[in-house]
C-alpha cells in the first residue's frame, strides 16, 4: 500500500527520524497560513502517490505566504501526470508546505526486503537525489548494501558502517548512525515493503534530515496495523483498481492495452498477458480471480474488465483447480447480462467442470469463441483481433 509523503514523515517522526518542519494543507488559504507560520522561503509539494512529481511542477519553491497560496491554488484540485502515473494522472487533494534548508550534501538511504537473502537490506549511496535504479545501472559500486539480521535487527556497528559509507562529516556521524537505526525500526515495526529517503540531506549546520520520504506498507501485514491501514487514500488509486481492491481481486490496470484478461492464478494471468502480446495486442490488465472465487467476486471481476473503456475483447483463461469452471461461467453470464456488454470473448476453460462451464457460456447468447488451451487461445485471439481490425 502506498501512502503520502506527509504520512510517511509522520511515521518517521514517531520513530525519531527528523524531517523538515512542515504541515499539510487542503486549501490555498491553509497553505498561506502554514507558510507564514514557517516563515521565509518554503516549498509547496503536491501530495500524490507517484514519483517524478518534481519534473512536472508538483514541487515548487515560493518566497512568500501569498505565493504559497497562489501555487497551492494551482495544484489543489488538479491532476498530476508524471511518468509513473497513467495518462489520467493522480489527483492533488493536499499539498505539503515545508521549510527550506541550507543543504551541504544529498545522500540516499532505503530499506527493502531482499527475497533471495531472506532479510531486509539497507541500501545507501552518496548519490542522493538520483533514482537508485539509475545509480545501480551507471555506478553500482556507489551503492552500499547491508542486510539486517532477523534476530538482532540492524546492529549498531552496521549502522555505523552505513554512516561511514555515506561519508557524512564527523560531527554528523552520531546522528546519522541513530537515523539509520531508527529507520530500520520504522521498516520492521510497521511491516514496510519500502522505506526510501531520497534525498537524505546534510545541512550546512551538519544536521541529518530526511528531506523526502517514501514508505510502502506491505498489504499482507496491514491486518496487524489497523492505524496504518486507515492511511489508505482511495482517491489516488485508479477507480478500477480500487473496485478490485474492495472485491479482494489481484488486478493491475495496464496502460494502452485493449485485451481484457480474466484468469485464475497469478502465473497463468501473467502468461495470458504474454500470449496476448505475442498475438499482436497489448493486455489491458492483469487479473487473478484467485482459487476459490465465488460467483459474486467473479461477477465483479468481469464488470471491472467490461467497465474499462480500453477493453475491446476479453480473454478468459481458466485452469480450475480449486475453482469450478461452471461457477465462473455463471458469474460471467450474469455480469454480462447485467452490463449488457457486447464485447467478444475468447474462452479457454480446463480443469474442474470445464465442459459444463463452456456449455453455459455457449448457450448464453454472448459472443463467445472457445479455445482449447493456452497455445490455442493465442491463435484464436489473433484471429479475433484481425476480425476486429486495427492493431496497437
Amino acid at each position, binding site marked *: 500500500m502506498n501512502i503520502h509523503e506527509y504520512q510517511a514523515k509522520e511515521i518517521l517522526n514517531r520513530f525519531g527520524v527528523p524531517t523538515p518542519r512542515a504541515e499539510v494543507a487542503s486549501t490555498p488559504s491553509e497553505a498561506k497560513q502554514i507558510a507564514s507560520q514557517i516563515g521565509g522561503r518554503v516549498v509547496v509539494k503536491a501530495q500524490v502517490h507517484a514519483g517524478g512529481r518534481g519534473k512536472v511542477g508538483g514541487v515548487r519553491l515560493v518566497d512568500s505566504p501569498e505565493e504559497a497560496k497562489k501555487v497551492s491554488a494551482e495544484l489543489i484540485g488538479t491532476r498530476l501526470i508524471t511518468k*509513473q502515473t497513467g495518462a489520467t494522472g493522480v489527483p492533488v487533494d493536499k499539498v505539503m508546505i515545508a521549510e527550506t534548508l541550507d543543504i551541504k550534501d544529498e545522500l540516499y538511504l532505503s530499506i*527493502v*526486503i531482499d*527475497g*533471495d537473502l*531472506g*532479510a*531486509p537490506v539497507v541500501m545507501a549511496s552518496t548519490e542522493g537525489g538520483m533514482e537508485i*535504479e539509475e545509480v*545501480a*545501472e551507471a555506478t553500482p559500486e556507489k551503492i552500499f548494501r547491508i542486510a539486517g*539480521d*532477523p*534476530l538482532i535487527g540492524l546492529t549498531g556497528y552496521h549502522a555505523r558502517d552505513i554512516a561511514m559509507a555515506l561519508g557524512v562529516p564527523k560531527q554528523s556521524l552520531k546522528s546519522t548512525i541513530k537515523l539509520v537505526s531508527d529507520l530500520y525500526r520504522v521498516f*520492521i515495526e510497521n*511491516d514496510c*515493503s519500502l522505506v526510501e529517503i531520497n534525498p537524505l540531506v546534510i545541512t550546512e549546520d551538519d544536521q541529518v534530515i530526511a528531506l523526502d520520504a517514501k514508505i510502502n506498507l*506491505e498489504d*499482507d*501485514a496491514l*491486518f*496487524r496495523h489497523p492505524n496504518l491501514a486507515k492511511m489508505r487514500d482511495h482517491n489516488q488509486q485508479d477507480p478500477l483498481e480500487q473496485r478490485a481492491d474492495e472485491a479482494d481481486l*489481484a488486478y*493491475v490496470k*495496464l*496502460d494502452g492495452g485493449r485485451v481484457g484478461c480474466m*484468469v*485464475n*492464478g*497469478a*502465473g*497463468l*494471468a*501473467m*502468461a495470458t*498477458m*504474454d*500470449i*496476448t*502480446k*505475442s498475438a499482436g495486442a*497489448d*493486455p489491458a490488465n*492483469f487479473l*487473478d480471480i484467485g*482459487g*476459490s472465487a465465488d460467483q459474486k467476486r467473479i461477477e465483479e471481476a468481469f464488470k471491472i474488465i467490461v467497465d474499462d473503456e480500453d477493453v475491446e475483447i476479453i480473454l478468459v483463461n481458466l*485452469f480450475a*483447480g*480449486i475453482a469450478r469452471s461452471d461457477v465462473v461461467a455463471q458469474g460471467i453470464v450474469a455480469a454480462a447480462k447485467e452490463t449488457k456488454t457486447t464485447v467478444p470473448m475468447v474462452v479457454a476453460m*480446463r*480443469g*474442474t467442470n470445464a465442459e459444463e462451464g463452456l456449455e453455459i457460456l455457449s448457450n448464453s447468447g454472448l459472443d463467445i469463441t472457445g479455445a482449447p*488451451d*493456452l*497455445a490455442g*487461445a*493465442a491463435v484464436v485471439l489473433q484471429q479475433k483481433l484481425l476480425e476486429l481490425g486495427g492493431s496497437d
Partner: protein
Amino acid sequence: MAILVGENTRLLVQGLGRDGSFQASRTRRYGTNMVAAVHPGRDNLKFEDEVPYFSTVAKAVEQTGANTGVIFVPAPFAMDAIIEQVDAGIELVVCITEGVPVLDMVKVMAYIKDKPTRLIGSNCPGVLSPASKAKVGIVPGNIVRPGNVGVVSRSGTLTYEAIAQLVQHDMGQSTCVGIGGDPVHGTTFTDVLELFQSDDETEAIVLIGEIGGIREQLAAEYIKDHVTKPVVAAIAGSSAPPGKRMGHAGAIITGKAALASEKNKALEAAGVHVVDSPALIGAKMQEVLH
C-alpha cells in the same frame, strides 16, 4: 522413487476450515495416506470418520507418526503453524497459505536455518508424485499422470498448465513441485533441481519461473554446474510493467535482474531449452526427449 513425497508419506493436515477440509478430502480421495488432522477444539473427533483430530501438532505426531505436514491456516497464523510443525519434528512442511506477511517468512527462514525440516512455500500449490499417489497440497490429482518429467514452478496454475501440456504430449510426471510465489520462501528452484538430478525416476525437468528476484538466475548457475538432465524452461511476465506487483508478492520488477528477458538469457546460457511462452512447454519437451 520420485522426490519429497511418496509411499512413506504420512500426512498431517493443519487448518481444516472450508478450504482446508475440501483439499484434505480431495487429497484422501486421490489416495494419499493422511494420518492426522490438526484443528483446535476438535479433539476426539475424526475427519471423514477416519482421520483423528488433534489440538496440537506435537500430539498428532506422537500418536500417528506423521512425517509430512500441510498448512491451510489463515495467513496471520501461518508462521506459528510452520514453527509448530518444525518444533514437532515434521520432516517436510508445505505451507499453502497465501498472504503470509513477508517479515514472518523472514523469521521463519531464520528459525529453520539449522533445523532438519524442509519447508515448501508459503503461497504454493504443494507437491504431487503421481506414481505413489502422494499429494501434499492442492495440485489437482485428475490432471497428472505417472511418468518421468519433473516439474518445478513458482506458480500454481502454470504448474497445472505444464502438467496438462505434458499429458497432452503423452508424457507423465515423476513429481510436480510448486515452490510458491512469495519473495521469501523455503525450498528454492535450486533445491528442487538438486533433488530431480539425483532422482532415478526423473529423466527431464520443466522449470517455470516468473518475473522478480534472482532465483531463476541462481537456478541457471546450478544447472550449468550440476544438472545433466535436459531442462525446459519458461518465464512468465515478459509483458508485465515495472514496479507493479503481479498477484504474487514476489512477482514484481524491481530492477534489471527481475526481468523475464534477463532470466531467459541466464537460463539459455546454462544450456536450458527456454521457450518464449509457457504455452510451448509440452511441445518443447517432446522435441527434447524424442
